[in-house]
Protein backbone atom coordinates (compact mmCIF):
# COMPACT_ATOMS: atom_id res chain seq x y z
CA UNK A 1 0.00 0.00 0.00
CA UNK A 2 1.84 3.09 -1.16
CA UNK A 3 0.17 5.77 0.88
CA UNK A 4 2.86 7.84 2.53
CA UNK A 5 6.28 8.08 0.96
CA UNK A 6 7.82 6.96 4.24
CA UNK A 7 7.53 4.17 6.79
CA UNK A 8 8.39 6.48 9.69
CA UNK A 9 7.55 10.04 10.64
CA UNK A 10 10.96 11.29 11.71
CA UNK A 11 10.64 14.90 10.62
CA UNK A 12 8.81 17.19 8.23
CA UNK A 13 12.03 17.65 6.27
CA UNK A 14 11.80 14.06 4.98
CA UNK A 15 8.17 14.08 3.82
CA UNK A 16 6.63 15.56 0.70
CA UNK A 17 3.83 18.10 0.32
CA UNK A 18 1.69 15.25 -1.09
CA UNK A 19 2.25 13.36 2.17
CA UNK A 20 1.11 16.44 4.11
CA UNK A 21 -2.02 16.76 1.96
CA UNK A 22 -2.84 13.08 2.49
CA UNK A 23 -2.38 13.43 6.26
CA UNK A 24 -4.70 16.48 6.28
CA UNK A 25 -7.33 14.74 4.16
CA UNK A 26 -7.26 11.70 6.44
CA UNK A 27 -7.37 13.94 9.53
CA UNK A 28 -10.60 15.52 8.18
CA UNK A 29 -12.22 12.09 8.44
CA UNK A 30 -10.86 11.45 11.91
CA UNK A 31 -12.08 14.84 13.06
CA UNK A 32 -15.58 13.67 12.14
CA UNK A 33 -14.97 10.47 14.11
CA UNK A 34 -13.91 12.28 17.31
CA UNK A 35 -16.93 14.57 17.14
CA UNK A 36 -19.61 11.91 17.07
CA UNK A 37 -21.27 10.05 19.97
CA UNK A 38 -18.94 7.04 19.79
CA UNK A 39 -15.48 8.44 19.22
CA UNK A 40 -13.76 5.21 18.44
CA UNK A 41 -13.06 3.05 15.38
CA UNK A 42 -11.72 -0.50 15.39
CA UNK A 43 -9.09 0.06 12.67
CA UNK A 44 -5.86 -0.58 14.61
CA UNK A 45 -7.22 -3.33 16.85
CA UNK A 46 -4.33 -5.67 16.00
CA UNK A 47 -1.62 -3.03 16.42
CA UNK A 48 0.39 -2.42 19.58
CA UNK A 49 1.97 0.98 20.08
CA UNK A 50 4.61 1.92 22.65
CA UNK A 51 4.79 5.53 23.81
CA UNK A 52 8.39 5.96 24.86
CA UNK A 53 9.02 9.32 26.51
CA UNK A 54 12.53 10.19 27.61
CA UNK A 55 11.42 13.78 28.28
CA UNK A 56 8.45 15.25 30.09
CA UNK A 57 5.26 15.80 28.16
CA UNK A 58 1.62 16.39 29.01
CA UNK A 59 -0.20 17.47 25.87
CA UNK A 60 1.68 15.42 23.29
CA UNK A 61 1.56 12.25 25.37
CA UNK A 62 -2.14 12.51 26.17
CA UNK A 63 -2.90 13.45 22.58
CA UNK A 64 -1.01 10.44 21.21
CA UNK A 65 -2.54 8.13 23.78
CA UNK A 66 -6.06 9.33 22.97
CA UNK A 67 -5.38 9.00 19.24
CA UNK A 68 -4.15 5.44 19.75
CA UNK A 69 -7.06 4.46 21.95
CA UNK A 70 -9.60 5.95 19.55
CA UNK A 71 -8.10 3.80 16.83
CA UNK A 72 -8.45 0.76 19.16
CA UNK A 73 -4.71 0.10 19.30
CA UNK A 74 -3.16 -1.52 22.36
CA UNK A 75 -1.00 1.01 24.15
CA UNK A 76 1.98 0.65 26.46
CA UNK A 77 3.48 3.69 28.13
CA UNK A 78 7.05 4.11 29.16
CA UNK A 79 8.74 7.07 30.72
CA UNK A 80 12.45 7.24 31.44
CA UNK A 81 12.08 8.54 34.98
CA UNK A 82 10.63 5.24 36.18
CA UNK A 83 12.61 2.80 34.03
CA UNK A 84 15.85 0.89 33.62
CA UNK A 85 17.30 3.83 31.68
CA UNK A 86 18.14 5.12 35.13
CA UNK A 87 20.19 1.92 35.60
CA UNK A 88 22.27 2.68 32.51
CA UNK A 89 20.44 0.78 29.74
CA UNK A 90 21.13 2.11 26.23
CA UNK A 91 18.41 3.50 23.97
CA UNK A 92 18.61 0.66 21.49
CA UNK A 93 18.49 -2.00 24.22
CA UNK A 94 15.50 -0.34 25.85
CA UNK A 95 13.58 -0.15 22.59
CA UNK A 96 14.61 -3.64 21.43
CA UNK A 97 13.34 -5.05 24.70
CA UNK A 98 10.03 -3.31 24.19
CA UNK A 99 9.86 -4.58 20.61
CA UNK A 100 10.62 -8.15 21.74
CA UNK A 101 7.19 -7.99 23.33
CA UNK A 102 5.73 -7.64 19.79
CA UNK A 103 5.18 -3.92 19.53
CA UNK A 104 4.41 -2.63 16.01
CA UNK A 105 4.95 1.11 16.40
CA UNK A 106 7.03 3.32 18.63
CA UNK A 107 6.10 6.92 19.44
CA UNK A 108 9.18 8.46 20.99
CA UNK A 109 10.30 11.72 22.55
CA UNK A 110 14.01 11.97 23.23
CA UNK A 111 16.31 14.84 24.27
CA UNK A 112 18.95 13.95 21.65
CA UNK A 113 18.39 15.35 18.14
CA UNK A 114 18.49 12.49 15.63
CA UNK A 115 17.68 9.75 18.15
CA UNK A 116 14.79 8.68 15.93
CA UNK A 117 16.91 8.41 12.79
CA UNK A 118 19.30 6.20 14.73
CA UNK A 119 16.47 4.01 15.93
CA UNK A 120 14.87 3.77 12.49
CA UNK A 121 18.10 2.34 11.12
CA UNK A 122 18.31 -0.36 13.76
CA UNK A 123 14.83 -1.60 14.55
CA UNK A 124 11.93 -2.94 12.57
CA UNK A 125 8.89 -0.91 13.65
CA UNK A 126 7.20 2.29 12.49
CA UNK A 127 8.69 5.19 14.41
CA UNK A 128 6.91 8.44 15.09
CA UNK A 129 8.90 11.39 16.36
CA UNK A 130 7.14 13.11 19.25
CA UNK A 131 10.01 15.57 19.62
CA UNK A 132 13.79 15.11 19.49
CA UNK A 133 15.73 17.71 21.46
CA UNK A 134 15.86 21.03 19.63
CA UNK A 135 15.53 19.35 16.21
CA UNK A 136 11.97 18.49 15.05
CA UNK A 137 8.46 18.01 16.40
CA UNK A 138 6.63 16.96 13.23
CA UNK A 139 3.18 16.21 14.64
CA UNK A 140 3.02 19.66 16.27
CA UNK A 141 3.92 21.33 12.96
CA UNK A 142 1.27 19.31 11.13
CA UNK A 143 -1.46 20.17 13.62
CA UNK A 144 -0.41 23.84 13.58
CA UNK A 145 -0.62 23.97 9.78
CA UNK A 146 -3.89 22.00 9.81
CA UNK A 147 -5.44 24.42 12.32
CA UNK A 148 -4.24 27.38 10.27
CA UNK A 149 -5.64 25.87 7.11
CA UNK A 150 -9.03 25.58 8.78
CA UNK A 151 -9.01 29.34 9.36
CA UNK A 152 -7.23 30.53 6.21
CA UNK A 153 -8.51 27.81 3.78
CA UNK A 154 -5.21 27.64 1.93
CA UNK A 155 -1.71 28.48 3.13
CA UNK A 156 -0.31 29.38 -0.29
CA UNK A 157 1.36 32.81 -0.07
CA UNK A 158 -0.03 33.39 3.43
CA UNK A 159 2.33 35.12 5.82
CA UNK A 160 3.07 33.26 9.03
CA UNK A 161 5.30 34.55 11.83
CA UNK A 162 6.99 32.35 14.39
CA UNK A 163 7.83 34.42 17.45
CA UNK A 164 10.01 33.79 20.48
CA UNK A 165 12.63 31.24 21.41
CA UNK A 166 13.54 29.95 17.95
CA UNK A 167 16.99 28.77 19.07
CA UNK A 168 15.74 26.10 21.47
CA UNK A 169 12.55 25.22 19.63
CA UNK A 170 11.91 22.01 17.73
CA UNK A 171 8.43 23.33 16.95
CA UNK A 172 9.98 26.25 15.04
CA UNK A 173 12.09 24.11 12.72
CA UNK A 174 9.28 21.65 11.93
CA UNK A 175 6.87 24.54 11.40
CA UNK A 176 9.25 26.26 9.00
CA UNK A 177 9.61 23.11 6.87
CA UNK A 178 5.89 22.37 6.96
CA UNK A 179 4.69 25.90 6.15
CA UNK A 180 7.21 26.21 3.31
CA UNK A 181 6.06 22.90 1.81
CA UNK A 182 2.52 24.26 1.84
CA UNK A 183 3.61 27.43 0.05
CA UNK A 184 3.42 29.90 2.97
CA UNK A 185 5.85 32.75 3.57
CA UNK A 186 7.57 32.42 6.94
CA UNK A 187 9.25 34.97 9.17
CA UNK A 188 10.86 34.29 12.53
CA UNK A 189 10.98 37.01 15.15
CA UNK A 190 12.68 37.22 18.52
CA UNK A 191 15.58 38.73 20.41
CA UNK A 192 18.92 38.38 18.55
CA UNK A 193 20.19 35.95 21.16
CA UNK A 194 17.29 33.56 20.55
CA UNK A 195 17.45 33.52 16.74
CA UNK A 196 19.96 30.99 15.37
CA UNK A 197 22.69 32.50 13.16
CA UNK A 198 22.11 32.08 9.41
CA UNK A 199 18.45 31.09 9.91
CA UNK A 200 17.69 33.02 6.70
CA UNK A 201 19.50 30.24 4.80
CA UNK A 202 16.31 28.16 5.24
CA UNK A 203 14.65 30.61 2.85
CA UNK A 204 12.81 32.59 5.50
CA UNK A 205 12.94 36.14 6.84
CA UNK A 206 14.17 37.08 10.30
CA UNK A 207 13.24 40.13 12.32
CA UNK A 208 13.89 41.55 15.77
CA UNK A 209 10.85 43.82 15.64
CA UNK A 210 7.64 42.28 17.00
CA UNK A 211 5.20 45.05 16.09
CA UNK A 212 6.38 45.24 12.51
CA UNK A 213 6.24 41.43 12.23
CA UNK A 214 2.69 41.27 13.58
CA UNK A 215 1.66 43.96 11.10
CA UNK A 216 3.20 41.86 8.29
CA UNK A 217 1.69 38.47 9.14
CA UNK A 218 -1.71 36.77 8.78
CA UNK A 219 -1.02 34.51 11.76
CA UNK A 220 1.57 34.36 14.52
CA UNK A 221 2.75 31.26 16.33
CA UNK A 222 3.98 32.35 19.76
CA UNK A 223 6.60 29.92 21.05
CA UNK A 224 7.30 29.23 24.68
CA UNK A 225 10.44 30.52 26.34
CA UNK A 226 12.20 27.25 27.13
CA UNK A 227 13.87 28.11 30.39
CA UNK A 228 14.78 24.46 31.00
CA UNK A 229 17.02 24.43 27.92
CA UNK A 230 18.64 27.79 28.62
CA UNK A 231 21.88 27.30 30.49
CA UNK A 232 23.05 30.86 29.79
CA UNK A 233 21.11 34.05 30.17
CA UNK A 234 19.71 35.00 26.78
CA UNK A 235 17.83 38.08 27.95
CA UNK A 236 17.98 40.22 31.11
CA UNK A 237 14.67 39.13 32.64
CA UNK A 238 11.32 37.55 31.75
CA UNK A 239 9.72 40.92 32.41
CA UNK A 240 11.95 42.61 29.88
CA UNK A 241 11.28 39.83 27.37
CA UNK A 242 7.54 40.19 27.74
CA UNK A 243 7.77 43.97 27.35
CA UNK A 244 9.63 43.57 24.06
CA UNK A 245 8.18 40.35 22.65
CA UNK A 246 4.99 39.63 24.59
CA UNK A 247 1.65 40.03 22.83
CA UNK A 248 -1.00 41.97 24.75
CA UNK A 249 -4.50 43.06 23.73
CA UNK A 250 -3.09 46.56 23.44
CA UNK A 251 -0.53 45.41 20.82
CA UNK A 252 -3.22 43.48 18.90
CA UNK A 253 -5.69 46.37 18.90
CA UNK A 254 -3.13 48.71 17.37
CA UNK A 255 -2.69 46.45 14.31
CA UNK A 256 -4.47 47.36 11.08
CA UNK A 257 -6.05 43.86 10.74
CA UNK A 258 -7.09 40.90 12.88
CA UNK A 259 -4.41 38.25 12.98
CA UNK A 260 -4.67 34.64 14.18
CA UNK A 261 -2.66 33.67 17.26
CA UNK A 262 -1.33 30.22 18.01
CA UNK A 263 0.69 28.72 20.82
CA UNK A 264 1.97 25.13 20.98
CA UNK A 265 1.66 25.09 24.79
CA UNK A 266 2.42 25.02 27.61
CA UNK A 267 1.81 28.77 27.82
CA UNK A 268 3.78 30.97 30.19
CA UNK A 269 0.82 33.28 30.70
CA UNK A 270 1.94 36.88 30.88
CA UNK A 271 5.28 36.14 29.17
CA UNK A 272 4.71 35.22 25.49
CA UNK A 273 1.07 36.25 25.53
CA UNK A 274 -1.25 37.62 28.18
CA UNK A 275 -4.20 35.62 29.49
CA UNK A 276 -6.54 38.03 27.75
CA UNK A 277 -4.95 37.29 24.37
CA UNK A 278 -4.77 33.53 24.98
CA UNK A 279 -8.49 33.43 25.75
CA UNK A 280 -9.55 35.89 23.02
CA UNK A 281 -11.41 34.99 19.83
CA UNK A 282 -8.25 35.58 17.79
CA UNK A 283 -6.52 32.70 19.55
CA UNK A 284 -6.88 29.17 18.11
CA UNK A 285 -4.93 27.46 20.88
CA UNK A 286 -7.70 25.05 21.86
CA UNK A 287 -8.45 24.26 18.19
CA UNK A 288 -4.81 23.23 17.94
CA UNK A 289 -5.22 20.81 20.84
CA UNK A 290 -8.41 19.31 19.37
CA UNK A 291 -6.86 18.95 15.93
CA UNK A 292 -3.80 17.33 17.49
CA UNK A 293 -5.75 14.14 18.18
CA UNK A 294 -7.17 13.98 14.62
CA UNK A 295 -3.75 14.63 13.05
CA UNK A 296 -2.09 11.96 15.20
CA UNK A 297 -4.85 9.46 14.38
CA UNK A 298 -4.26 10.15 10.69
CA UNK A 299 -0.49 9.65 11.01
CA UNK A 300 -0.81 6.40 12.96
CA UNK A 301 -3.46 5.12 10.54
CA UNK A 302 -1.40 5.91 7.44
CA UNK A 303 1.85 4.52 8.87
CA UNK A 304 0.17 1.33 10.10
CA UNK A 305 -1.34 0.88 6.63
CA UNK A 306 1.98 1.38 4.91
CA UNK A 307 3.65 -1.41 6.88
CA UNK A 308 1.54 -4.07 5.15
CA UNK A 309 3.64 -3.49 2.05
CA UNK A 310 6.44 -5.77 3.18
Amino acid at each position, binding site marked *: *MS*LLSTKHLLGIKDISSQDIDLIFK*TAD*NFKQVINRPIKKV*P*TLRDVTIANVFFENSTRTKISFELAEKRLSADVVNFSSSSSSVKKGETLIDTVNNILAMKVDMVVMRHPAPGAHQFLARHIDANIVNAGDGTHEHPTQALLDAYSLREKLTNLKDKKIAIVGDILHSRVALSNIYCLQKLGAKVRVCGPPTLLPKHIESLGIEASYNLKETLEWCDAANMLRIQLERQEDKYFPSLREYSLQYGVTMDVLNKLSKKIILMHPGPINRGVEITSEVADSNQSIILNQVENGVAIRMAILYLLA*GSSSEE
Partner: protein
Amino acid sequence: MKRVILDYKKVDLMLTRMCHELVEKHNSFENSAIIALQPRGILLGNAIKNKLKELFNVDATYGELDTTFHRDDFRRTNKPLIPNAMTMNFPIEGKHLIIIDDVLFTGRSIRAALDAINDYGRPASVELLTLINRKYKREVPIHPDYIGEHVDSRTDDFVKVDWKEEQCKIWIITEEEK
Protein backbone atom coordinates in the same frame (compact mmCIF):
# COMPACT_ATOMS: atom_id res chain seq x y z
CA MET B 1 -14.24 -9.02 -22.68
CA LYS B 2 -16.61 -6.23 -21.73
CA ARG B 3 -20.34 -6.23 -22.27
CA VAL B 4 -23.28 -4.15 -21.11
CA ILE B 5 -25.82 -6.22 -19.20
CA LEU B 6 -28.23 -3.45 -18.28
CA ASP B 7 -28.86 -0.07 -19.86
CA TYR B 8 -30.42 2.93 -18.13
CA LYS B 9 -33.91 2.28 -19.46
CA LYS B 10 -33.95 -1.00 -17.56
CA VAL B 11 -32.18 0.51 -14.54
CA ASP B 12 -34.76 3.31 -14.42
CA LEU B 13 -37.56 0.74 -14.26
CA MET B 14 -35.76 -1.00 -11.43
CA LEU B 15 -35.30 2.23 -9.50
CA THR B 16 -39.01 2.98 -9.91
CA ARG B 17 -39.94 -0.51 -8.74
CA MET B 18 -37.66 -0.31 -5.71
CA CYS B 19 -39.05 3.11 -4.76
CA HIS B 20 -42.55 1.60 -4.78
CA GLU B 21 -41.31 -1.21 -2.53
CA LEU B 22 -39.68 1.31 -0.19
CA VAL B 23 -42.78 3.47 0.09
CA GLU B 24 -44.96 0.39 0.58
CA LYS B 25 -42.93 -0.42 3.68
CA HIS B 26 -41.76 2.98 4.95
CA ASN B 27 -44.73 5.15 3.92
CA SER B 28 -43.66 8.79 4.08
CA PHE B 29 -40.23 8.01 5.59
CA GLU B 30 -41.18 9.79 8.81
CA ASN B 31 -39.07 7.51 10.96
CA SER B 32 -36.89 6.09 8.21
CA ALA B 33 -33.64 7.19 6.60
CA ILE B 34 -31.49 6.27 3.63
CA ILE B 35 -27.78 5.68 4.13
CA ALA B 36 -25.69 5.47 0.98
CA LEU B 37 -22.27 3.85 1.25
CA GLN B 38 -19.15 5.67 0.11
CA PRO B 39 -17.78 5.66 -2.49
CA ARG B 40 -19.94 3.82 -5.02
CA GLY B 41 -23.33 3.77 -3.35
CA ILE B 42 -23.62 7.56 -3.38
CA LEU B 43 -24.88 7.98 -6.92
CA LEU B 44 -27.43 5.21 -6.48
CA GLY B 45 -28.45 6.72 -3.13
CA ASN B 46 -29.03 10.08 -4.75
CA ALA B 47 -30.95 8.51 -7.63
CA ILE B 48 -33.27 6.72 -5.16
CA LYS B 49 -33.69 9.87 -3.09
CA ASN B 50 -34.60 11.94 -6.17
CA LYS B 51 -36.93 9.27 -7.48
CA LEU B 52 -38.78 9.11 -4.14
CA LYS B 53 -39.28 12.86 -4.34
CA GLU B 54 -40.36 12.73 -7.96
CA LEU B 55 -42.80 9.82 -7.66
CA PHE B 56 -44.22 10.26 -4.17
CA ASN B 57 -43.09 13.71 -3.07
CA VAL B 58 -41.24 12.04 -0.19
CA ASP B 59 -38.27 13.90 1.34
CA ALA B 60 -36.28 11.02 2.75
CA THR B 61 -33.62 11.75 5.38
CA TYR B 62 -30.37 10.99 3.62
CA GLY B 63 -26.82 10.31 4.84
CA GLU B 64 -23.56 9.16 3.35
CA LEU B 65 -21.49 6.70 5.33
CA ASP B 66 -17.85 5.75 4.89
CA THR B 67 -16.84 2.33 6.18
CA THR B 68 -13.07 2.50 5.65
CA PHE B 69 -12.19 2.49 9.35
CA HIS B 70 -14.38 -0.56 9.94
CA ARG B 71 -13.08 -2.72 7.10
CA ASP B 72 -11.62 -6.09 7.97
CA ASP B 73 -8.80 -5.98 5.39
CA PHE B 74 -6.75 -3.07 6.80
CA ARG B 75 -3.05 -4.14 6.78
CA ARG B 76 -4.09 -7.23 4.82
CA THR B 77 -4.45 -5.74 1.35
CA ASN B 78 -2.13 -4.00 -1.06
CA LYS B 79 -4.81 -1.57 -2.16
CA PRO B 80 -4.68 1.83 -0.44
CA LEU B 81 -7.56 2.33 1.98
CA ILE B 82 -8.24 6.03 1.75
CA PRO B 83 -11.26 7.20 3.70
CA ASN B 84 -14.05 9.27 2.10
CA ALA B 85 -16.14 12.09 3.50
CA MET B 86 -19.15 11.24 5.66
CA THR B 87 -22.36 13.21 6.05
CA MET B 88 -24.49 11.80 8.80
CA ASN B 89 -26.25 14.88 10.07
CA PHE B 90 -29.18 13.24 11.80
CA PRO B 91 -29.64 10.98 14.84
CA ILE B 92 -30.18 7.35 13.82
CA GLU B 93 -31.34 6.23 17.26
CA GLY B 94 -34.65 4.41 16.85
CA LYS B 95 -34.82 5.00 13.08
CA HIS B 96 -35.50 2.43 10.36
CA LEU B 97 -32.44 2.56 8.11
CA ILE B 98 -31.98 1.46 4.52
CA ILE B 99 -28.35 0.92 3.52
CA ILE B 100 -27.76 1.51 -0.19
CA ASP B 101 -24.84 0.14 -2.20
CA ASP B 102 -24.55 -0.52 -5.92
CA VAL B 103 -23.22 -4.08 -6.02
CA LEU B 104 -23.51 -6.77 -3.33
CA PHE B 105 -20.80 -9.38 -3.77
CA THR B 106 -18.86 -10.76 -0.76
CA GLY B 107 -21.00 -8.82 1.72
CA ARG B 108 -17.98 -7.60 3.67
CA SER B 109 -18.62 -3.89 2.98
CA ILE B 110 -22.12 -4.29 4.38
CA ARG B 111 -20.74 -6.01 7.47
CA ALA B 112 -18.39 -3.02 7.92
CA ALA B 113 -21.32 -0.65 7.37
CA LEU B 114 -23.36 -2.38 10.09
CA ASP B 115 -20.44 -1.82 12.49
CA ALA B 116 -20.01 1.79 11.39
CA ILE B 117 -23.72 2.48 11.92
CA ASN B 118 -23.44 1.26 15.52
CA ASP B 119 -21.04 4.14 16.20
CA TYR B 120 -23.89 6.57 15.59
CA GLY B 121 -26.45 4.87 17.82
CA ARG B 122 -28.96 2.01 17.84
CA PRO B 123 -31.34 2.03 14.87
CA ALA B 124 -34.75 0.36 15.14
CA SER B 125 -33.97 -1.77 12.10
CA VAL B 126 -31.56 -1.94 9.18
CA GLU B 127 -32.38 -3.08 5.65
CA LEU B 128 -30.24 -3.38 2.55
CA LEU B 129 -30.98 -2.13 -0.96
CA THR B 130 -28.68 -3.05 -3.81
CA LEU B 131 -28.87 -2.55 -7.56
CA ILE B 132 -26.96 -5.71 -8.41
CA ASN B 133 -26.99 -8.84 -6.27
CA ARG B 134 -24.08 -11.02 -7.39
CA LYS B 135 -24.42 -14.64 -6.42
CA TYR B 136 -21.78 -17.29 -5.67
CA LYS B 137 -19.26 -15.47 -3.52
CA ARG B 138 -20.99 -14.33 -0.37
CA GLU B 139 -18.47 -14.56 2.50
CA VAL B 140 -20.73 -13.43 5.33
CA PRO B 141 -24.41 -14.19 5.97
CA ILE B 142 -25.87 -11.03 4.44
CA HIS B 143 -28.89 -10.83 2.15
CA PRO B 144 -30.46 -7.77 0.49
CA ASP B 145 -34.07 -6.73 1.15
CA TYR B 146 -34.53 -4.73 -2.07
CA ILE B 147 -32.82 -5.96 -5.23
CA GLY B 148 -32.54 -4.39 -8.68
CA GLU B 149 -31.30 -7.46 -10.51
CA HIS B 150 -29.65 -10.79 -9.71
CA VAL B 151 -26.49 -11.39 -11.72
CA ASP B 152 -24.92 -14.84 -12.03
CA SER B 153 -21.43 -13.89 -13.17
CA ARG B 154 -18.19 -15.78 -12.67
CA THR B 155 -16.53 -14.90 -9.38
CA ASP B 156 -13.49 -13.44 -11.14
CA ASP B 157 -15.63 -11.18 -13.34
CA PHE B 158 -16.00 -7.54 -12.45
CA VAL B 159 -19.41 -5.91 -12.42
CA LYS B 160 -19.19 -2.19 -12.99
CA VAL B 161 -22.00 0.29 -12.46
CA ASP B 162 -21.04 3.18 -14.68
CA TRP B 163 -22.81 6.46 -13.84
CA LYS B 164 -22.79 9.37 -16.26
CA GLU B 165 -24.99 12.41 -15.78
CA GLU B 166 -27.25 10.65 -13.30
CA GLN B 167 -27.79 7.73 -15.66
CA CYS B 168 -26.01 4.42 -15.51
CA LYS B 169 -25.05 1.40 -17.54
CA ILE B 170 -24.00 -1.84 -15.97
CA TRP B 171 -21.08 -3.73 -17.44
CA ILE B 172 -19.58 -7.13 -16.88
CA ILE B 173 -15.85 -7.10 -17.38
CA THR B 174 -13.86 -10.35 -17.44
CA GLU B 175 -10.51 -10.77 -15.70
CA GLU B 176 -8.20 -9.79 -18.59
CA GLU B 177 -9.99 -6.49 -19.20
CA LYS B 178 -10.03 -5.14 -15.65
